[in-house]
C-alpha cells in the first residue's frame, strides 16, 4: 500500500516534469522577465535544484502536509484543495450511498425477477454521459420544478446536502450500472448454487433464503466493485461539478490542467490514488468478514 503510493508519487512527480516546456514559463504567464527575475523565480520554486532533491523535498513536504504553492492561485496547494475538499467528499459520499443503495437494490430486484428489464434500464442509464444527465437533471428538477438548487455548494450541512442531491444523482445514474450488474450476476450465481436449493428444500422461507443465503453470499463481488468505483467517482466529480457550477476538487483539477498548475494537479492525482488505495485496503480487510474462505487462504 505504502509502496503503491510511493511509486505513484514518483510517477506523478516525474511525469509532470517531463511535460514539454519550462514550468517557469507557466509561472511568469508569458511575461518577459529579466534573467534576475527568472533566477529568483527558479530559486523560489526550487527549480534550480537537481531532480532527486526536488522530489525528496516534495515528498517530505507532503508528509508534513505541505504540497507546495499553486501557480495559478496565490495560495498553498493544501489550502486550495482543503477548502474544496469537504464539498467534493460530501458529493462522493452521497453518491456512494446512492450508488450502493440503488445499485444493490436494483440488482436484487433484477436477480429475483425474470427478464432483463433492470439490466436494460441501468445499461441505458450508464450510457448517458454524466454531463448530459447533469444538464437534464438541472433543467428539469432545478429550473423547471425548482426542487433543488442548480448551482453552488450551499452552506450548512442540510443546505449542502440539498445542493448535492442532483449532482449525486447524475453520478449515480452513471456509476450505478456496474454495481447493479455485479449484484445481479452475483445473486443469480448464488441463486443457482446447490446450497440455496438445500436450504429451500429444508423449508426456509424465500425471504430468509434470499436474505441470509443469497444476498449475504453475493456481497463479496459487490463490495469489491464498489471499492474499485471510488477513484473513478472522485474524478468524475470533475464533470458534474463543472456542469453544476460547483467548485470542488474535480472542477479544480480541470481548471488547474487548463492553467498548467502542476502542483495542484499533482496533489489531486495523489489524492485520488491515495483514496483508491485506502478504500481498497479497507475492502481487503473487510472481505474476510464477508467470505471466511479468504481468511484461510
Amino acid at each position, binding site marked *: 500500500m505504502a509502496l503503491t503510493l510511493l511509486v505513484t508519487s514518483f510517477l506523478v512527480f516525474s511525469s509532470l516534469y517531463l511535460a514539454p516546456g519550462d514550468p517557469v514559463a507557466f509561472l511568469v504567464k508569458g511575461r518577459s522577465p529579466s534573467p534576475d527575475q527568472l533566477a529568483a523565480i527558479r530559486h523560489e520554486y526550487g527549480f534550480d535544484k537537481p531532480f532527486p532533491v526536488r522530489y525528496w523535498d516534495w515528498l517530505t513536504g507532503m508528509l508534513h502536509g505541505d504540497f507546495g504553492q499553486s501557480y495559478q492561485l496565490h495560495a498553498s496547494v493544501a489550502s486550495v484543495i482543503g477548502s474544496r475538499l469537504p464539498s467534493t467528499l460530501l458529493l462522493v459520499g452521497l453518491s456512494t450511498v446512492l450508488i450502493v443503495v440503488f445499485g444493490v437494490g436494483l440488482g436484487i430486484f433484477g436477480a429475483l425477477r425474470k427478464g432483463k428489464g433492470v439490466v436494460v434500464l441501468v445499461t441505458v442509464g450508464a450510457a448517458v454521459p454524466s454531463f448530459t444527465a447533469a444538464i437534464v437533471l438541472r433543467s428539469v428538477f432545478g429550473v423547471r420544478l425548482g426542487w433543488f438548487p442548480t448551482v453552488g455548494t450551499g452552506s450548512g450541512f442540510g443546505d449542502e446536502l440539498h445542493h448535492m442531491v442532483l449532482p449525486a444523482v447524475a453520478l449515480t445514474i452513471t456509476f450505478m450500472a456496474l454495481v447493479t450488474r455485479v449484484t445481479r450476476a452475483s445473486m443469480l450465481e448464488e441463486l443457482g*448454487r*446447490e*446450497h440455496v*436449493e*438445500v*436450504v*429451500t*428444500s*429444508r*423449508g*426456509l*422461507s424465500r425471504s*430468509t433464503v434470499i436474505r*441470509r*443465503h443469497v444476498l*449475504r*453470499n453475493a456481497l463479496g463481488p459487490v463490495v469489491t466493485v464498489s471499492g474499485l468505483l471510488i477513484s473513478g467517482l472522485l474524478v468524475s466529480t470533475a464533470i458534474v461539478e463543472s456542469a453544476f457550477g460547483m467548485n470542488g476538487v474535480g472542477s479544480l483539477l480541470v481548471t488547474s490542467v487548463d492553467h498548467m498548475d502542476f502542483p495542484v494537479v499533482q496533489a489531486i492525482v495523489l489524492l485520488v490514488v491515495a483514496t483508491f488505495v485506502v478504500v481498497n485496503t479497507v475492502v481487503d480487510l473487510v472481505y474476510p468478514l*464477508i*467470505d*471466511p*474462505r479468504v481468511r*484461510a487462504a
Partner: protein
Amino acid sequence: MNTLLDIKGLTVAMAGLGRPILDEVSLAVHDGEAVALVGESGSGKSVTARTALGLFPGGATVSGSVVVGGTEVVAAGPGDLRRVRTSVASMIFQDPRAGVNPVRRIGDFLTEPLRRIQGRSKAEATAQALELLGAVGMPDPPRHLRQFPHELSGGMLQRVMIAYALTADPRLLLCDEPTTALDVTTQAEIMAILGRLRRDRGLGILLITHDLDLAASVCDRVYVMYAGRIMEAAPSAALTSVPRHPYTRGLLGSAPPLTGPMPRLAPIPGAPLGLAEAVSGCPFAARCAHVVPGLCDATTPTLERHGDSQVACLRAAELIDETQGEGLR
C-alpha cells in the same frame, strides 16, 4: 404399512426437448424401507427425488401424482409444500461441499432451521444441533459448531448435511448420490450412519446411486431407471441374481467383478439417450441386443409384474425363459 412416498404416473416434460425428462414414473417408499433408484447419468434420478420436495425444473409441465406423507405435492400450495419440507421429507445431496453455505458457520447452518422453522430458542437449537452432530458420528460436536465448511473434509461435511436433514425430524430421507463424491471407505461410513438412522428412527430412505452393487447391498428394493422411465423394479436379491430387463443385465455385465472369474466385459453398446433425442417405443431399443424391429420401436412397454419383479420390456417373458434356459445349460 404406511406409504411415505407414492409417485404415480409422473411425467415431467419441457418444451423444446425430444423426450420428457420423466416419463410415467411410478415409485413408492414405505415406512422404514430403503429403496434404491439406479440408473446412468441423465436418466432422471435426481429430478424424480426432487419432485418429492416439490422442486420441479423451472418451466416444466408436470402430470401425475406425487404423494408425500399423505400430501399431494404436484400443484400443492406453499403451505402444504412447507409442511412436507419441514416435517416429512428431507434431502441429502451429492456434493456436500456445494450444499453447505460456505460463508456461515456449521452452527449457524444447523440451528437456522431449528430456530426459524421449529421456533426453538437459541440454546435449545444449539443443544439439538450438538446432539445431531453426535448422532451422525462427528468426533467433536462443540468445536464443529464453530467451524466453517472449508475447515471440514468431504466425509465430515456429508455428515453435517445428514444432520441438517435430520433437523426436520423427517420420516423420509431422500439421498441423492450421497457418497459419489466420497472415498469408498468413507462411503461405507455414510452408509453405516444411514443404516443406523433407518433402524433407530424408522426412516424411509430413497437412495439414488448409479452403483448397482451398492444399491443391492444396502436397500430392500431397487428401481432401475433409463431415459426417464422405470425399466425394472425388484427386491435387491432378485435384481442381482435374476435381472429381468436387458438393460439391468447390461449394467451388471458392465461392471468388472472384484472376485471370481474375470470374463471380458460385455458392455451395452451405444450411449444413453440424450434429452434431445425423440423416442418411439422402448427407449432402450437402440442399445438392446434383443430388439425386435417393428415391435420394440413401435410400442412403449409398461411395467409388468414378472415374479417378484416388475419389468418394462415387451419381450420380458421370452427373455426370462431364455436366460433361465441359459442358466440351465
